[in-house]
């Protein structure tokens, strides 16, 4: 079920009312059971067959925690406990790889063997990729690893655990929640908080504005440009690249905001997944602000166990490339994603080797209205570097990505954008939405989100109405969230 659909518009109020009605009259267990049922309805709306897989993943992870706990109680050795954790990790990653990467690896293996003169038999698995599999798999894995590391108590409430893995606002596109943050919230009774619920609504509104007015309007132009790169001049390609940078940001951060806002309606707090990444002054800061839940997951469960940056230089290089390549691969089975990861690794590496990867940990221009010229330059350069990466990410293959970038580098190819009148109008509409988004995000960079206003109620409501109407008018049918494909 998409957030931007009539089904969700009917689903959410119904679930909200029943949830709090049950909360007042029934036990915590009943409230959690209802969350599981609602989440499974939400997820099964795409395809009911997906439910078996998520239930299986959840059950295996739950069992692995109990088994680890029982083994510890029986005094079993660390090796055996490690084996239990490893078994669940391998099982879940195996399922993820089967659905997501089998055909990709097989195709590349066949091409590799063909290049040296051997022909391999071809078996294609025409499997449907379950929506959100990358997200909930990583979420379940984090539980197993944290239990193994004794960072969290073993879950003994299966209903609460199922609620933790399947909680519908963040199920299909994150944030990838840690068990240490989310699971304990399902062990406590939630009570309705008016301020939290109102803030949740504001956050949802901001999320919908970013998704509908920014991302979906940009998508209309981006899809046209990327579908036929050869037909457009460099200016048009530049517009396409910049709009995609904002499309993916509006889409993904919009979803995260809607997820966070929806969760607040149910008394649940999710982690912040985006923290104004396009105001970053270098690539290291960008990666602390973009898709925070995934990056911290890779940092905590891959980078640090490999030694992080507290090892010799060659291993720092290895570790850095490992997490960025894995991050690229996580996004999908295509060389463009892996290349995108490698590109960012190459940008990040000099900073970490020079010890400058934590130079900017504060908010840019904190306490000042405007940024200084050198900060503007830093943000501009970082945005440009990131946008080049987005071209690789969005392209259908490496060849198209390189061709696109080469065309941008050809200064003689710049002229007035060769787009038809209607598309230029859409560019203008999209640009206006992007400008408003950036302006509000800039002005509110010290606040939780841009719609935290202190004006009087009528003024605030006029503002909310403006964004609501703008988002409504920007709605187009069938625009799924980009990250659903991951």
């Amino acid at each position, binding site marked *: 079920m998409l957030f931007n659909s*009539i089904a969700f518009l009917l689903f959410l109020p119904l679930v909200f009312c029943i949830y*709090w009605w049950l909360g007042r009259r029934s036990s915590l267990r009943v409230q959690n059971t209802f969350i599981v049922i609602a989440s499974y309805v939400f997820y099964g709306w795409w395809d009911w067959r997906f439910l078996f897989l998520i239930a299986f993943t959840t059950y295996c992870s739950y069992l692995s925690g109990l088994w680890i706990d029982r083994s510890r109680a029986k005094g079993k050795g660390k090796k055996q406990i490690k084996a239990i954790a490893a078994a669940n990790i391998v099982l879940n990653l195996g399922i993820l790889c089967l659905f997501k990467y089998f055909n990709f690896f097989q195709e590349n293996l066949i091409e590799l063997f063909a290049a040296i003169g051997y022909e391999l038999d071809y078996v294609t698995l025409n499997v449907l990729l379950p929506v959100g599999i990358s997200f909930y798999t990583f979420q379940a894995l984090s539980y197993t690893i944290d239990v193994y590391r004794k960072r969290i108590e073993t879950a003994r409430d299966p209903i609460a655990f199922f609620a933790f893995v399947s909680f519908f606002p963040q199920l299909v596109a994150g944030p990838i929640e840690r068990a240490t943050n989310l699971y304990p919230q399902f062990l406590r009774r939630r009570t*309705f908080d*008016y301020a939290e*619920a*109102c803030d949740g*609504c504001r956050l949802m509104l901001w999320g919908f504005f970013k998704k509908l007015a920014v991302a979906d309007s940009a998508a209309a132009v981006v899809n046209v440009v990327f579908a*036929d790169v050869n037909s457009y001049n460099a200016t048009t390609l530049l517009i396409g690249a910049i709009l995609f940078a904002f499309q993916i940001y509006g889409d993904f951060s919009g979803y995260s905001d809607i997820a966070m806002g929806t969760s607040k309606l149910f008394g649940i707090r999710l982690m912040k997944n985006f923290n104004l990444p396009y105001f970053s002054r270098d690539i290291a800061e960008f990666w602390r602000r973009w898709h925070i839940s995934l990056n911290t997951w890779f940092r905590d469960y891959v980078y640090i166990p490999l030694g992080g940056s507290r090892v010799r230089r060659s291993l720092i290089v290895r570790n850095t490339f490992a997490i960025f390549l894995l991050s690229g691969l996580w996004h999908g089975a295509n060389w463009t994603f892996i290349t995108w990861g490698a590109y960012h690794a190459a940008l990040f590496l000099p900073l970490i080797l020079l010890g400058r990867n934590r130079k900017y940990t504060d908010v840019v221009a904190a306490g000042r209205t405007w940024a200084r010229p050198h900060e503007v330059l830093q943000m501009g350069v970082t945005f440009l570097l990131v946008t080049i990466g987005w071209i690789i990410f969005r392209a259908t293959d490496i060849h198209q990505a390189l061709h696109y970038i080469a065309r941008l580098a050809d200064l003689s190819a710049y002229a007035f954008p060769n787009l038809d*009148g209607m598309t230029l*109008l859409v560019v203008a509409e999209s640009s206006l939405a992007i400008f408003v988004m950036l302006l509000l995000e800039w002005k509110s960079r010290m606040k939780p989100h841009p719609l935290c206003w202190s004006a009087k109620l009528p003024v605030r*409501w006029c503002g*909310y*109405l403006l964004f*609501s*109407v703008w988002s*409504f*008018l*920007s*709605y*187009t*049918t069938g625009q799924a969230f980009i990250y659903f494909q991951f």
Partner: protein
Amino acid sequence: MKRFLIRTIAFTCLFVGVLFILNLILPYNPDGYMREYFVKTARLDSTDRNKVVILGGSNVAFGYDSKLLTDSLNRPVINAGLHAGLGLKFIVDDASRYLKRGDILVLSPEYEHFFAATAYGGHPLADIFYLSDGRVASLLDMKQWSTVLENTPFYLKEKVRYTATAWALKRANHTQLSRMSAFNEYGDMVAHWPDSLSHYTAPAETSSTPQELNADYLLHFVQQVKEVKKRGVDVVLYPPSVAVSYLHSHAADIQSVDSAFTTLDIPFVCRPGECSFPDSLLYNTHYHLGHRGAQMHTLHLLHLLRDKGLADSGN
């Protein structure tokens, strides 16, 4: 909780109220393409003589020289094609209200109608719903109501866009196609006829992935056709005019539609390939013919109608 619910409901009412006011005060383009629907409907309603009605999407609007057909058949010909986005279900349900014994219905649907949910329409259906002040509501089923609701934002956005850019539209090129005044008195799209150049470029893909037919709608379509036939209307199922490149790249889908029609006893009157044209005769999409193509297509239809014995006097 009570305070939250009251404020949420109040805000929602305000929001809906603002949308309602916007709909009231913002004009729809008086020369908008979809307004041609009312001209065609009036023509269908007012023509008493046994008529020929050609029905489909914009493939039909661009596909015929109806004056040529009228003069040859000596009976009124109404090009009732407008926009595939109305959805074939609505197109047939709506037009069949005006058909009576002795009429000839040439039904030429775009192939996409038989895949996914295309038959239930898109934003043009919402446009017609609102422009008709809801008078077409009785023709809509649940899926079409969903289409109307989902496309209400698009309809309102078009009004906002028109208001913001009316000055630009007034200065637009006279060959602009997306307007009511681009049609002639027979319902043919003619604004592009003076332009003999083709502006159509076939997409790079040489073949598309075959899709699954919408079996539910296909069965419903067969019922629609049979019901029209029962009323004494001669129905000719005529393949839509397409670019040759499209015929090749979508061969599997076109073949599956052709086979399905044959299996369900409502076969096309000729092979789809007979209605394919060199890309140079298409105007701007794989369904939209230029003037020369429309004339050729019309003569082909005339020939088929004569073969079926339907091309005698209309009196």
